[in-house]
């Protein structure tokens, strides 16, 4: 089961502090980012998503593109269910797995094992389910006995491997990613790619926000472009994607940009 439908979804960010006084006009269009506006009560807010409508169905691999501040990350958080839209309708069916920050909830002073438990718990796993995952994570990250050591003793590569492995251990129907996940040296990066591919193959829908059009054209079959918080375009990519970043890019799409 995987289905997302958004109709006229609006997200406003309130701006607190002394900004309102310095805003002379009631309607300002920022160079990048959403539209700055004031409401009746003279409160200043940024319209991060402006009547966004779309429908994602099973099999959709959606690439979200747009310049910085165009609303990509905000939209991902709306889909993750953490930002509730100010208005509009949103229907999400299926278990959502948000991989927006792979370091979420990790404590450097805690051991690798403790971190796996902690993160697993936040992601909705029960103790027993996590116990089953430990061996698999230990093998994949090649950390073995290091899992009993505090994470602060890890090299950055080891910490990265652990964070990556934990983030990608729970299958979900809908996977949200802010930039493609990759980790570690070339040998590990290859295995990481395999692991991510397996996870994505199980997922019904993937939404990936990225600036890398080459990447998007190789892993996505639809592209949604956001501009100042509104949907500027929505198009299907011509070729059935390989779902793994390939070296060859699809030129037609690059031409569009």
């Amino acid at each position, binding site marked *: 089961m995987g289905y997302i439908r958004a109709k006229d979804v609006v997200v406003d*960010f*309130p701006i607190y502090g002394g900004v309102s006084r310095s805003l002379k006009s009631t309607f300002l269009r920022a160079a990048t980012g959403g539209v700055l506006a004031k409401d009746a009560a003279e409160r200043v807010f940024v319209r991060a998503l402006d009547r966004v409508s779309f429908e994602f169905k099973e099999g959709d691999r959606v690439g979200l593109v747009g310049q910085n501040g165009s609303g990509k990350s905000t939209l991902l*958080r709306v889909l*993750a*269910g*953490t*930002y*509730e839209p*100010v*208005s509009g309708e949103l229907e999400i069916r299926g278990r*959502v797995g*948000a991989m*927006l*920050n792979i370091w*979420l*909830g990790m*404590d450097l*002073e*805690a051991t690798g094992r*403790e971190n796996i*438990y*902690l993160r697993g*718990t*936040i*992601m909705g796993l*029960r*103790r027993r389910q996590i116990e089953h995952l430990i061996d698999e994570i230990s093998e994949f990250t090649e950390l073995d006995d290091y899992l009993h050591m*505090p994470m602060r003793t890890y090299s950055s590569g080891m910490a990265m491997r652990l964070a990556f492995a934990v983030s990608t251990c729970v299958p979900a129907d809908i996977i949200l990613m802010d930039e493609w996940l990759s980790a570690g040296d070339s040998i590990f990066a290859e295995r990481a790619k395999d692991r991510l591919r397996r996870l994505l193959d199980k997922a019904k829908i993937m939404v990936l926000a990225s600036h890398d059009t080459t990447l998007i054209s190789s892993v996505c079959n639809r592209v949604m472009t956001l501009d100042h918080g509104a949907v500027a375009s929505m198009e299907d990519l011509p070729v059935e994607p390989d779902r793994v970043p390939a070296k060859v890019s699809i030129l037609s799409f690059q031409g569009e940009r």
Partner: protein
Amino acid sequence: MVWFSSRYLALAAQDLAGSLFDTHVWIALGWQEVQQRYRRSKLGPFWLTISTGAMVAGMGPLYGRLLNVDLTTYFAYLATSLVVWQLIAGVVLDSCQAFISAESVIKQIKLPLSMQVLRVVWRNLIIFAHNFIIIIVVLVLYPPNFGWHMLLMPLGLCVLCINAVWIGLALGMVCARFRDIPQIVQSLLQLLFFLTPVMWRADTLGRNVWAANINPLYHFVEIVRTPLLIGPASVMSWACVGFITIVGWLLTFAVFARFRGRIAYWV
């Protein structure tokens, strides 16, 4: 956006029910925070026990004389009062950061928001359990009035925790939205420590005992402390606490229902 609707109430109820159902999440988070704070320290959270113990041992003789009371009963009174007060003060202070400190989780994963408050209350209960050793030691050294009424203490503690959750929700929301509030709460709490009969007894006020009775915190301390020392807490204390529990929850639930969806934007 609709200003208020029954859907908001349903979602807020769902949020609270979700937290109560997924107890393992906030229990794990609360434990981890206590551990995190005392990692690599040999005594860990027992440092709190020691510091509270030192406070009782140090302040007991001094204030006992200043207030001109019998030291044998004053030690037991001071120990239980301080430990209960630390629980209340800890919950109030930490609640201010309940949502702010959980920003990264709140923005990435959809979890019941009330879970963050339960995490705070639970963490303070763990600390309370460590401090409780002081109460046991003092009560062994200076035996109080033992009896069945002591069983009212767990009941009082439960009622206190039920209130801690609404106080935590309310403070957590207000502090996430208005960042000056944590400072105000901190100062107020310091003042309230002296205004509330924690170190001194309400009956020493004589005709002015109303000054203690109008203080809700006094009644909260009473329902947990008195069963351990003398006997059941007064009917007035229970009535006040009962009233505050109902009104506090009703008001907080309405506010939580209205602004629950905005918390992620505030933090």
